[in-house]
């Protein structure tokens, strides 16, 4: 029995197979409509996350399965002091597969050690969020046709953004990938990503402060939110915030085939005027998130269609 804790739990070959399955689901949804008849997904969400939980639930319903679960720790037995190990033993009696989100880092791993059903990490604090990374990879591969030979701009809060760290770790496994890291200096990627991942693997990268300076020759622009509270002072925030807002003027500098991704929720870092640009694919990305979760559920339940 397999679980998914990190995107790197899957080899490049396994990932390729999973993404191919997701694309087949996209093209032939009817073929998979009853693949999980009689199966139940438990969504154990110890903290609220509307999009991820609904994406998992939608994925299971699309496969003909059903869904049980809770959407906050208050409405689970955690409020009574039950351990994660005990909760998953109980959930294992009710469901066939579990997607778990927990504010404590490593909680889904603890669950997987005691579980008799596959456990998917649906986000554990600032640690991992593997299905977001799978979503990002599926979006890029589906719309670009490949995951190698790409110049990827990562923009915004690169220090605390776990989706960015996961995406870097996942993409360095493909040849000829180059990163442009666009952030204020306070929010640059942490040293363990720069040194232990990028430098250690000889991955070309540059660090810049302004989006305009980098956008012209990117294949992918991955936007994240720059939160005001991450800045040391108001003055810096006011001076820099516009560097990280993507608008029509900045899009005019970009290539015709550049894609804009965002893990959402978007607040103001992408102007709504960009939404109608065919290069803005962040809402398509949400749809790919459902397909990749469907593929993941089938893979972990070892169901072949």
């Amino acid at each position, binding site marked *: 029995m397999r679980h998914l804790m990190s995107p790197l739990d899957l080899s490049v070959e396994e990932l390729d197979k999973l993404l191919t399955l997701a694309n087949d689901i996209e093209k032939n949804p009817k073929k998979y409509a009853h693949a999980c008849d009689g199966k139940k997904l438990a969504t154990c969400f110890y903290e609220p996350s509307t999009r991820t939980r609904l994406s998992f639930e939608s994925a299971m319903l699309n496969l003909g399965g059903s869904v049980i679960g809770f959407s906050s720790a208050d409405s689970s037995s955690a409020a009574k002091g039950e351990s994660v*190990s005990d909760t998953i033993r109980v959930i294992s009696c009710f469901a066939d597969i579990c997607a778990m989100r927990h*504010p*404590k880092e490593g909680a889904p*791993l603890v669950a997987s050690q005691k579980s008799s059903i596959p456990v998917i990490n649906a986000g*554990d*604090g600032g640690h991992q969020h593997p299905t977001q990374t799978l979503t990002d990879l599926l979006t890029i591969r589906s719309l670009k046709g490949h995951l190698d030979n790409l110049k990827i701009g990562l923009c915004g809060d690169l220090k605390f953004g776990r989706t960015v760290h996961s995406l870097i770790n996942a993409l360095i496994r493909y040849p000829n990938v180059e990163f442009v890291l666009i952030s204020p200096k306070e929010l640059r990627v942490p040293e363990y990503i720069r040194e232990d991942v990028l430098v250690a693997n000889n991955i070309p990268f540059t660090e810049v402060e302004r989006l305009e300076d980098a956008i012209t020759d990117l294949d992918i622009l991955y936007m994240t939110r720059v939160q005001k509270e991450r800045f040391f002072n108001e003055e810096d925030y006011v001076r820099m915030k516009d560097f990280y807002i993507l608008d029509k003027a900045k899009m005019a500098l970009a290539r015709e085939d550049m894609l804009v991704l965002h893990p959402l929720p978007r607040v103001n870092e992408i102007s709504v005027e960009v939404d109608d640009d065919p290069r803005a694919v962040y809402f398509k990305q949400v749809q790919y998130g459902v397909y990749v979760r469907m593929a993941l559920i089938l893979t972990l339940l070892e169901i072949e269609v």
Partner: protein
Amino acid sequence: MLNISGIQEGFVLDHIKAGASLSIYHYLKLDQLDCCVAIIKNARSKKMGKKDMIKVECPIDKLDLDILGFIDHNITVNIIKGEQIVEKRRLRLPKEIKNVIRCKNPRCISSIEQELDQIFILTDEDKEVYRCKYCEEKYERK
């Protein structure tokens, strides 16, 4: 030169960093052994200038070499039989250490989950980096 009499059967931990012997005494739980233990502090050393040593008169199998490897893998372990050194054992960094150190990340599940083993994994042998098995936070030695 201070002389400590030889031991019949046991082991000598040599080349301990000066001042570190007492913490090793506690890590190895030598206080729980019912045998003769001698701690020598600040002994003169050609290699180190000053060093600590611990002599223990009990069989080596009572010692957890994994913990010792984590604390300081430069320590030499001399195994004694009949007052003679019969083996010098080299220490290696253990791949995994269990319930020796605690994760300091307050966001880690190990900070709240009952009876969860504190497990650290060796992720970079050259840089001697251990990371928490659950949250992957790096363990910072003081």
